């Protein structure tokens, strides 16, 4: 089995220390995390992690199970890049003088889908979103004009085919303590849940 890029999506309780618990699952196996984003989800009190790694499917499957085993984790999915819609945000800081003098700014904005976020006398900050290659293209263009600073966010991703985990989350929210649980039914049914 060959390695490829996988995006792991994890729904969790909003708990202190959980980031560490999840990170340990990767670090103890000496697996590098390429990108990690964590933020609140659409459901109150539930957070969402998006983790990108390069691994074989076999390893990724085991990792997801180990993640899902954590007490504060509600659900973990893994997907290849063509099963998700994903974006990264990039910010570029350039000298305002330099850029106004030498570059056709309007063209730049149009061609690269960029947006000026801040324009000051000393510098201007542009923003783009997209896949890595897309945001990289603007870096190349701006570099000759003295890119002062560049930063890219972690990946955020939405699974193309999941049948609305939102509904599931609401169920989780509503369930009264003590009721019998019936989750896990998708554990080995990734394909069915996510076929497009």
């Amino acid at each position: 089995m060959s390695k490829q890029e996988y995006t792991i999506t994890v729904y969790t309780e909003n708990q202190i220390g959980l980031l560490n618990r999840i990170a340990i699952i990767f670090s103890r196996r000496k697996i590098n995390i390429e990108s990690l984003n964590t933020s609140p989800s659409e459901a109150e009190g539930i957070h969402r992690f998006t983790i990108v790694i390069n691994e074989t499917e076999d390893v990724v499957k085991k990792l997801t199970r180990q993640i899902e085993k954590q007490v504060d984790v509600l659900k973990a999915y893994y997907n290849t890049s063509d099963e998700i819609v994903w974006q990264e945000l990039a910010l570029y800081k350039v000298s305002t003088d330099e850029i106004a003098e030498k570059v056709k700014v309007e063209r730049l904005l149009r061609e690269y889908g960029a947006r000026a976020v801040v324009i000051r006398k000393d510098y201007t900050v542009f923003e783009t979103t997209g896949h890595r290659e897309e945001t990289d293209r603007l870096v190349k263009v701006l570099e000759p004009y003295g890119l002062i600073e560049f930063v890219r966010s972690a990946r955020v991703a939405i699974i193309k085919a999941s049948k609305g985990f939102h509904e599931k989350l609401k169920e989780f929210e509503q369930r009264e303590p003590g009721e019998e649980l019936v989750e896990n039914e998708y554990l080995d049914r990734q394909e069915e849940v996510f076929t497009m």
Partner: protein
Amino acid sequence: MQSTLSQPQKAALQTKTETISGSEAVLRAMVAEGVYTIFGYPGGAIMPIYDALYDYNDKLEHILVRHEQGGIHAAQGFARSSGKVGVVFATSGPGATNLVTGLADAMIDSTPLVCITGQVFAHLLGTDAFQETDVINITTPVTKWNYQVTDATEIPSVLAKAFYIAKSGRPGPVLIDITKNAQLQQFEYEGYKPCDHIRSYRPKPVVRKEYVEEAAKLINAAERPFVIFGQGVILGKAEKEFMQFIEKAGIPTAWTIMGMSAIPTDHPLAVGMLGMHGNYGPNVLTNECDVLIAVGMRFDDRVTGRLDKYAKQAKVIHLDIDPAEIDKNVKTTVPVWGDCKETLPMLTELIDQKVYPQWLKRFRDFEQEEINTCIEPELHPSSDVMTMGEVIRTLNELTNGEAIVVTDVGQHQMVACRYAKFNQSKSNITSGGLGTMGFALPAAIGAKYGAPDRTVVAVIGDGGFQMTLQELGTIMQFDVDIKILILNNQFLGMVRQWQQLFHDRRYSFVNITSPDFVQVAKGYHIEGNSINERKDLKSALETMLNHKGAYLLEVMVGKENNVFPMVPQGCSVAEIRLK
């Protein structure tokens, strides 16, 4: 009976509160959870809890250990012999870090524990205050769950969660770190509600009937089926269900070191122990069976040897409560997720009543070979030097398989597990996954509290005994009636064996000298004896077992004896060596 109270009336009743401290809330949680024994060691950051404990004398028995590691191993022993949750108290900083070895041990051996550690005042967190350590981060990899409490109002619900998590599903250790201000804080206590549900936690996967059916089909069609089981049977309290399953199926059955004693060692279908120092037949025939049924075990590398050569010919059915265990090490043909107490009867229902006399005989033939080459010389040696095996054999004769045997780690552990006879479940207590030297003495103390009516014998090497021998003090102070059997080979025996076999006999730092153990015991007012002649063995063991109260017996055994059979590291189980 239908309640006649109106909604507001009920609400009014529920809000009847009283003001108590966080510390008191901790102890009320203990009582509500049915805890009656706590192992622990006080200190500044947990003093409010100890202060409250002073008034709980009649409800909670606290055993003052001599080291927190001893405390947590004792709690493990308690949990393993009783099937209940073990509880430990420790103070912040060094108290808490002394728990780490036991946490790691309990984590890998799925032992239910609730550990309460004191912590500095919340306003001091992160300031390198006196005895402040980041206990939550230190213990994260070795706990099933942990949590830091900084406000007393959280205590009842957090402790309820802690007990629920520790004992449900695949059990494990939970640590709750409570800041001193939370222990002291007075708050409106609304009573204790046990926890039986956590939104994000699924202790048991849903049983899939179709997989059970598929598994039954495979078993019914098998010609050479083989059952292997682990501690899951004991943790699931499924001994009876398991026995019914194997007896109807008629399948030869072997155990892992952790599963040992779930069925009587002399059961007609029992073919022995698996793994590196397991029995010859079950190891070899793992690579000849056509259907391998693994129940509540996790295919540890000490059991499988080389994975790429492990049971490749077999269809594998794996019954486990932890979905993450499925396909982790060995690829399964049919996974049966669930609590084996639930899944085994379903499976038993669907399988045919069968016997496999030819196949079982293959195990017996290998057994005979093992008896001739290893077992006989070990149990009835011809030389003058005593072997560990004959000590265990004699112990068996005197205890009739009724004793709890707690072992430390090393050659004596493997010998004890190979040769001890058991009639009851929860009788073999050992550090399986972590292999923690120093485990046995404190774990035996805990085991005695967990099963006060049973004889508890701790079998320990001269090396491991010196790792936690301070717990003799606990035994002395609390009159703990355990029998300590030291098998002294004057070496760190297991390491020496490896140096002999794999490092050209370069005995590098395995020669360990010991104090006069009997004198040491005497210092603690514990009776003892040391023997080095076979003629004294039986009577010395008898004296030990008949003695009222704790007793230490040292038996001098052969210095350079080895434990065989052995699957050398990196070999397949079929390459097991008899000598």
